[in-house]
């Protein structure tokens, strides 16, 4: 039985292509997509490194939402005028939004539990 080559985990290239071309709004060559994929890989490495530093800084071993918020603030995505939940509402589909933002539903319950 031929051993299956173990590959590094990565985001599906079709998904990267879809997202990138959604925002680019102009034709993109195949080589350019290759570069974008490489950049995504690099981005994840860097982000993980940063999150590790922020988590250690707060004397924790588990990455929490607060660490991500600090990261996005450092990246300039979250500012005083642009809070995290606005970004969540703008960029995430409904089912993920429901998981992240507390919503009151019937029976006087709030999801997720605050």
């Amino acid at each position, binding site marked *: 039985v031929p051993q299956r080559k173990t590959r590094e985990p990565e985001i599906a290239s079709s998904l990267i292509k879809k997202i990138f071309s959604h925002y680019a709004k102009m034709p993109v060559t195949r080589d350019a997509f290759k570069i974008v994929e490489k950049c995504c890989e690099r981005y994840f490495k860097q982000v993980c490194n*940063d999150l590790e*530093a*922020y988590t250690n*800084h707060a004397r924790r071993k588990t990455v929490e939402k*607060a*660490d991500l918020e*600090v990261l996005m603030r450092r990246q300039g995505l979250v500012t*005083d005028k642009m809070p995290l939940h606005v970004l969540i509402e703008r960029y995430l589909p409904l089912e993920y939004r429901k998981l992240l933002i507390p919503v009151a539903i019937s029976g006087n319950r709030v999801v997720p539990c605050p």
Partner: protein
Amino acid sequence: CCVPVQRPGDLCASPCVALRRTDLLVPWVLQRLKAAVHYTVGCLCQEVAEDQDVQFSKQTIAAISEITFRQCENFAKDLEMFARHAKRTTVTTEDVKLLARRSSSLLKYIAQKSEEITSSNMEQKEKKKKSSAVKGGRTGKQEAPVTESEEPNMA
């Protein structure tokens, strides 16, 4: 000597934005800070000019000092955020190191400097301990009223 007067009317246009220390400063204090930065930048530029044998125009020095001033704002915000993230209200060297993490050479330099400072602080503390053991802890009593008088201004 000069405590900025806090007037609730003209501090902040939108109430949702958290008050920053710079909002509390009246314009002329800001101007004086800028002048101090400009002076120091001028001195540093002159050092570089003599060292590298180049000339800085006045506009360049002014631009560098303006950049420095604005960069300080970013640094202050980030340091505050890092300290709050670690559930502290005091900015420490750890926060400063986190700020310089992006550039490895800068991080190396800052880590080295912080080690130097901590080692010199330890020496001073040991000296103080020895001297306070002789004098009976006089320095501690002197410092206490100063910190108390500062607290009302911070609030």
